[in-house]
């Protein structure tokens, strides 16, 4: 379903050139729960961002379904992300002026879905992530774990083909991190979305059905469980 072919990406910082990806190729099937792991600078986040269409590569190709997403125009990329991808960030990245309900609903607003449908789907997903009764709280009045649940709800509410999570447990204590991972695993099974993590957290790696280790911009190992 996702086919990454010979991906190269180099960052330049002043006169310094950093090769983030050196010919990465990878295939990910529908509904997989996969972790891209590796130390800092290994290229895991870069690969995640390129698959998520929020960053570009120097060469190579990424196909999602039958569609090559590398050469999409900016607006088409935005619409592709809106309709097919969900993101979960390390720092939750919720909109502080919106309530939990509004943060989740806004994803559907962008898709132009009717208000009635939005309400129904948002309430359902908030219940599913365990935030029933907290819909009207703004992020400032939620704990880290609760904020990450809102972020996950926001990403999964539109039933994306792919959910991309960059270090989703890094800001959480281990118990909360485990709860979040259990939640994501459940959602992976119930929504049939592909979950891709960029992480260096061993607990995430343990949860993953497939572990792809990167080192210096290349795939070091690819293990299925």
């Amino acid at each position, binding site marked *: 379903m996702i086919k990454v072919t010979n991906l190269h990406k180099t960052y330049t910082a002043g006169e310094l050139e950093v090769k983030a990806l050196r010919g990465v190729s990878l295939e990910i099937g529908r509904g997989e729960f996969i972790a891209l792991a590796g130390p800092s600078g290994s290229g895991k986040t870069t690969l995640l961002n390129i698959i998520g269409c929020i*960053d*570009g590569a120097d060469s190579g190709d990424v196909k999602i379904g039958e569609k090559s997403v590398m050469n999409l125009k900016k607006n088409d990329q935005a619409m592709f*992300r809106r309709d097919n991808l969900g*993101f979960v960030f390390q720092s939750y990245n919720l909109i502080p002026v919106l309530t939990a309900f509004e943060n989740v609903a806004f*994803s559907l*607003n*962008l898709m132009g879905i009717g208000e009635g449908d939005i309400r129904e789907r948002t309430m359902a997903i908030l219940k599913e992530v365990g935030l029933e009764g907290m819909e009207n709280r703004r992020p400032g009045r939620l704990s880290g774990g609760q904020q990450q649940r809102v972020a996950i709800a926001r990403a999964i509410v539109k039933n994306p083909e792919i959910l991309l999570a960059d270090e989703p447990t890094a800001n959480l204590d281990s118990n909360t991190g485990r709860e979040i991972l259990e939640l994501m695993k459940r959602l992976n099974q119930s929504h049939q979305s592909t979950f891709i993590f960029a992480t260096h957290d061993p607990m995430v790696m343990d949860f993953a059905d497939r572990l792809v280790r990167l080192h210096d911009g290349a795939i070091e190992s690819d293990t299925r469980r």
Partner: protein
Amino acid sequence: MKLYKIALRNISRNKRRSGLSAAAIAIAAAAIVFLFAFFAGMLNDMRTNMWTYLTGAVRVRHSDFDKYERLNPVHLAIPGYDALLKDIMADPAVRAVSPRINFPGRVPVGEGTEKINVMGVGVDFALEAKYQDYEATLTEGSLPRMGTREALIGRALAAKLDAGIGGKFTVLSQSGSRGSNAYTFTVVGILDLPIAGLETLMVQVPLDTAQRFLWLPGQVGEILLKVDPQVDSPEDAALRLGKGLKSEVPLNVWDYKQVNGMAAMMDLAASIYDITAIIFFLLASTVIINTTIMVIFERMNEIGTLAAMGMKGSQLVRLFFLEALFIGIIGSLTGIAIGMAVAGYFGGAGLNLFSDAMEGMDTMGMGSVIYPVLNFKSTVMVFVYSVLVTGLATWWPARRAAKVTPVEALRY
């Protein structure tokens, strides 16, 4: 969740900063509403005073008078003006006429060794009462009777002459036969004139007395007219009268802008006010640009998140634009309300800024007390300008923010 709701909530995120932006717009809008009202009041005042005391909306003179004006050609008068007045009054645009003789004179004061300059004006008080607003200016005494040597003088001149009601003074002047003459007049009324320069000079006497004094029986130096601008402009009225009037002597029928070239500058002034307004708004827009840039940098990570969620660049621009629009609307409405209140207050009370500075100056008819006049059209324009400038000031930084790639924005 509509974009405008998010924009409204974003405004309340940092109330102090949003307030600062709104205040910048409010100050600019208030200043411009007041300035426009002040300038409109000033122009109205100048036009009214010029028409009343100096040039008329249209002026009829002997055509050679203007050529030799510096030589005080009193003898270049208009004979048989009664018939001329009838023709002038028959014109549909003419609302009032003032046949007059102007005569510069000298008045001895003290022991007689010192003389002060005066500007004598012989007027027909029956017609003049319809031409100028004596109810407002004649604050003491009464109008002179025709055929007498009674006079009205400006309050400042009365102080110089040390003459109140019943006081006497003698005017020396050159007559129409190029000789000299002197008449002693009795003060029967004191004028509080809107032009400080005129108040120190003006002596108004009955027209028939002035005719005898200047040896100009049955003649006037000029006829000033007021026209109804709703019917016709002074320019068109002057053109029409110039073609139609018949006299024993050649006539110049000029509108006030031809009489006083500076009056034509009044039209130019309107453009200068627009430029002033633009400068004010440009200054205010720098605050908006600064604030928007600050907000964008602060919220760059959020911009990245929204972009990752699939928000298009145009939607991001619209979000920031709406925020600025609301601030602009709040700021401009507040500013306009303040500007209107201040202009309204001074519109009634008057704003005396120049009375001392303008004494004895040629002020193009500008009064020493200005009464600002609010204009609905210009007030609406201020609102439109304010909102437009706020929007434009936001557009550039918002557009730049929308061009940043999501991954770059998320790194902030």
